[in-house]
């Protein structure tokens, strides 16, 4: 503190030093001798939406729109962004990808303006006295003018000059160093427009209210220094002359030179109380504020041996470099390298159509002698010259070593990210190592690695979330299944206790009883009503009596129906078997329904015989089911519903595919066996198998095509399936129950393993197939030598072997799972599948029938049909469930 107080005055004008730095030949005299000249007015201007660092601007115009000079054509999006204005009047001819100012040579979205040559301005006017505006409004003016740092990076200026309330600017530094060789844009600007620059600096001072304002200029620009000094006379701007040394114009280096402060790694100068602006930016601010002119052009140095008239040109933004070169006169046969920016930090252009943008301070069209092809890289001799030159005080030789070996962690430990890519190290390196490229490469890898890490973490999270979800679903399913099993078990117990149905002899008696019962009930009701009407006391009694009688009557009716159902042969006419069966089914169903209802009523009224009734209902159901099955059989034997045409191409193809695949499979098997036995014809067999496979594949492809072409028949396909020949044996509840006997944990394990194996097999198989295809291709084109061919053949064989092993393991596991199912359900997987399929098709048939007869049939029949449908649905459901459970528990996902 004390030191600061006492040291204050004598330190005041001190210029500090920074570590390292180099002195490349300046090459400024080519371009700094002539005054700034106007650039060309090209026929077509290309304005990238990203001329600055940050978010691309959003276009405000559409192709075909007419624009005037100075009209905003793209607005800033978000805080770190800058507006774009039409540099001349004309028509927007396109908005699309064009090559832009990027070392990759890639394209980005640009607004293309065809100029009309009139250069007509939009209405604009400057602010007479900006001190009347609040800093906020002024910042907005700058933002609307699209000003971005003109020194190199292109950071939007409005961000830099918009400080938070708590921030205090100690020093405002105006960067007029221009340390890169060749570039003289700022030099000329200062010589010719010093007053405007100083006016711009005053605006910055008003905005930032810095304690001190410093302009740093390198001592190789004496004219500029005197011009600026003259313009600054009488105001509080201090001109500091710094020794010529590259890279003293680097923001961090200049701050260190003028203030002795270091900007902490990863922080911004504002955090040490410094704001740094380029002279060009100060000039642009002055134009924007005092004249209302947005940033439309900049001074660009055009230099290099291949240029006829090197010098500085006031170039419209968006001017293609080719136009500028033509304007300055380029000897294209002398051109060896085209650099945008300076020779130390610029980048080579891939395409002269790249436009001049806000940051383009220089275009070097160099001859091959001037900037020769870099010599081959030699081994690093660890001479340390690079470390002596590095302004960031890094150890470039170590960075290089680690970057070269992809040892990113070590490189980061050596502060790779603090490298400013100034190129001083590569400049001095006696071994001509492209050090900067190594660092850029390593930085890219570091960023990529970070991005990959983020992505991997996200993938892990998603994977785990999915896994958890699947597990939970399975747990829920398991719970439901358990509940159902429990219910089924109870039901069965109840069913076991039920008596058998009444005999046929009892039928008449039952009918009689029923009639009597209903009579009695009706009488009772009547009596009750009269009694009620008369206000009789015993009305309630009577009512109760009526109820009881009703129950009895119902019971009797049900019994009668039962009896009927039990003796269908007597009742049904024999001429149309199917029709009669149908009727019977209908009857049986309704009998069942009635019985159920009766049982329910009885239960509700607490009648003793509820149990009986329920039992009877069960029996009736069984009958109904049996009948239904019969009906189905009968139908199958004499199909009444029109089946889908047998010639359905899809079905046909499918069959062919199936045949072909099985032929292939058996061929493969045969081949394998032959191979195993070392038979001579193994190769032949394999060839045959391959041929078959090709056939199968072809057919499959055909099938796919056919399906795509004829989606309707494909959907109708299930209807075309032959109805099951035998009576579907409804698995009822036994399948799930027995499957439940499998140890779930074991099953889950197997399931996992199965899945993994399957993926492994798929992968292996795919690799094999690819390799095989490659081999065949090679064979066909005879492009391989015998050795290569053999090697490839071996690889294919190896892959094949791997796939086979995987498949065998998979097969074994599947077999095991199947055996398990058999052991636990008493049925093998095939049966279960068959059952499910049958149930499904029966269901489909019924649905169709119902649909057909909806309008024509009698109410009663419909009802019956619906009932049947319901029953079938349940069946199908159960069968499906049984199958699915069996399959899932064993981890056998359907192929």
């Amino acid at each position, binding site marked *: 503190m004390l030191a600061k107080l006492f040291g204050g005055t004598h330190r005041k004008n001190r210029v500090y030093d920074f570590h390292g730095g180099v002195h490349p030949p300046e090459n400024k005299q080519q371009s700094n001798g002539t005054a700034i000249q106007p650039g060309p007015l090209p026929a077509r201007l290309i304005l990238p939406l990203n001329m600055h660092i940050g978010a691309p601007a959003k276009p405000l115009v559409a192709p075909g729109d007419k624009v005037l000079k100075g009209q905003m054509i793209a607005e800033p999006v978000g805080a770190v962004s800058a507006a774009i204005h039409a540099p001349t009047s004309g028509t927007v001819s396109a908005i699309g990808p064009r090559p832009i100012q990027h070392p990759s040579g890639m394209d980005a979205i640009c607004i293309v303006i065809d100029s009309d040559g009139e250069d007509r301005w939009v209405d604009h006017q400057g602010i007479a006295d900006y001190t009347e505006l609040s800093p906020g409004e002024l910042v907005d003016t700058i933002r609307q003018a699209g000003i971005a740092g003109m020194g190199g990076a292109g950071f939007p200026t409005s961000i830099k000059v918009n400080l938070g309330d708590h921030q205090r600017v100690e020093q405002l530094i105006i960067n007029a160093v221009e340390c890169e060789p060749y570039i003289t844009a700022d030099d000329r600007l200062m010589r010719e427009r010093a007053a405007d620059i100083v006016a711009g600096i005053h605006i910055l001072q008003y905005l930032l209210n810095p304690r001190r304002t410093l302009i740093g200029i390198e001592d190789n620009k004496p004219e500029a220094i005197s011009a600026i000094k003259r313009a600054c006379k009488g105001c509080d701007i201090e001109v500091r002359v710094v020794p010529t040394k590259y890279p003293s114009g680097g923001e961090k280096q200049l701050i260190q030179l003028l203030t002795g402060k270091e900007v902490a790694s990863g922080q911004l100068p504002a955090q040490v109380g410094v704001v740094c602006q380029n002279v060009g930016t100060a000039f642009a601010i002055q134009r924007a504020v005092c004249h209302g002119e947005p940033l439309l052009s900049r001074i660009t140095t055009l230099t290099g041996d291949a240029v006829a008239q090197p010098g500085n040109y006031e170039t419209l933004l968006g001017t293609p470099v080719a136009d500028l070169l033509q304007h300055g006169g380029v000897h294209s046969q002398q051109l060896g390298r085209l650099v945008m920016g300076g020779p130390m930090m610029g980048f080579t252009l891939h395409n002269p159509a790249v436009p001049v943008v806000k940051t383009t301070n220089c275009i070097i069209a160099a001859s091959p002698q001037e900037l020769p092809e*870099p010599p*081959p890289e030699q081994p690093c001799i660890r001479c340390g010259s690079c470390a002596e030159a590095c302004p960031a005080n890094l150890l470039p030789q170590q960075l290089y070593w680690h970057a070269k070996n992809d040892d990113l962690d070590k490189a980061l430990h050596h502060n790779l990210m603090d490298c400013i890519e100034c190129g001083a190290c590569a400049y001095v390196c006696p071994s001509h190592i492209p050090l900067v490229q190594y660092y850029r490469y390593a930085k890219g890898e570091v960023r990529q690695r970070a991005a990959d890490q983020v992505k991997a973490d996200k993938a892990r999270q998603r994977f785990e979330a999915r896994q958890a979800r699947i597990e939970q679903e399975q747990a829920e399913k398991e719970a439901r299944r358990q509940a159902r099993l429990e219910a089924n078990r109870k039901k069965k117990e109840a069913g076991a206790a039920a008596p058998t149905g009444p005999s046929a002899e009892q039928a008449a008696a039952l009918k009689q009883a029923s009639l009597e019962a209903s009579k009695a009930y009706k009488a009772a009701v009547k009596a009750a009503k009269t009694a009620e009407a008369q206000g009789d006391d015993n009305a309630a009694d009577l009512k109760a009596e009526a109820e009881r009688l009703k129950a009895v009557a119902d019971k009797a009716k049900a019994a009668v129906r039962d009896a009927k159902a039990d003796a269908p042969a007597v009742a049904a006419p024999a001429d149309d078997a199917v029709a009669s069966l149908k009727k019977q089914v209908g009857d049986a169903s309704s009998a069942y329904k009635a019985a159920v209802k009766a049982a329910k009523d009885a239960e509700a009224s607490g009648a003793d015989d509820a149990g009986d009734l329920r039992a009877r209902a069960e029996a009736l159901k069984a009958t109904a089911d049996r009948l239904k099955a019969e009906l189905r059989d009968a139908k199958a034997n004499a199909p009444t519903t029109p089946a889908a045409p047998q010639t359905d191409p899809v079905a046909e193809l499918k069959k062919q595919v199936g045949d072909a695949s099985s032929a292939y499979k058996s061929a493969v098997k045969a081949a394998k066996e032959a191979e195993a036995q070392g038979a001579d014809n193994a190769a032949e067999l394999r060839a045959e198998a391959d041929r078959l496979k090709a056939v199968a594949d072809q057919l499959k492809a055909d099938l796919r095509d056919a399906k795509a072409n004829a989606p309707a028949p494909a959907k109708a396909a299930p209807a075309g399936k032959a109805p099951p020949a035998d009576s579907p044996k409804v698995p009822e509840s036994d399948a799930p129950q027995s499957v439940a006997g499998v140890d779930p944990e074991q099953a889950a394990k197997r399931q996992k393993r199965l899945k993994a194996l399957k993926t492994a097999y798929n992968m292996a198989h795919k690799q094999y197939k690819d390799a095989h295809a490659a081999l065949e291709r090679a064979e066909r084109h005879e492009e391989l030598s015998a050795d290569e061919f053999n090697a490839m053949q071996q690889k294919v064989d190896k892959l094949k072997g791997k796939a086979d092993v995987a498949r065998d393991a998979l097969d074994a596991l599947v077999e095991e799972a199947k055996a398990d199912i058999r052991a636990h359900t008493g049925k093998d997987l095939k049966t279960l599948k068959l059952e499910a399929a049958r149930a499904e098709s029966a269901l489909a048939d019924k649905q169709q029938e119902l649909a057909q007869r909806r309008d024509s049939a009698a109410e009663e029949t419909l009802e019956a049909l619906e009932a049947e449908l319901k029953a079938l649905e349940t069946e199908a459901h159960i069968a499906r469930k049984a199958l699915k459970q069996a399959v899932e528990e064993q981890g056998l996902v359907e192929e």
Partner: protein
Amino acid sequence: MTAVLIAIAALLGLAAVFGAVLGFASEKFKVEGDPIVDQIDDLLPQTQCGQCGHPGCRPYAEAIAEGEEHNRCPPGGQDTVDALTDLLGRDAMTVDDDGAEDADVTKVAYIREDECIGCTKCIQACPVDAIVGAAKLMHTVIVDECTGCDLCVEPCPVDCIDMLEVKPTLQTWGWNRPAGIGQRPDSRIEVVNL
């Protein structure tokens, strides 16, 4: 003779001292790390592709922890194998990828949407839920979430899923590593319109 004895004694003494120091340091500065499975899982690329023969990276991490070989992850490439070698202190191995296509090429799945029949099979196959869609409706891949695992390609009945290489964008583009000692680091570009 005594000199030799003294020398041996001195060496032994030194060894004992250093051993003690090292032992102490390793106790004192022991890194309380994640459980080993987590550490392994962190190194795996999380592509969740199953090429290692496990239904995802985590299960493979568990298997490695239980002693399975650590070279089975082709997406991770040799780098991952090396990192695992370091972590586990096992013998170095080369990655077992059977010359599969270049693991460096990142790919993502892309559904040709007008061909998709909406069968949902790919959704079920995707290990990271990067595919959205509903039954009978067109499906699509969320490119940012896709790990390029390839698992959705096989189940698609109409083969409408392609694995496309991820092209660098301006944001992801990076400089190449220079060609190395003895090579010129530049390249030539053909320029026509000048």
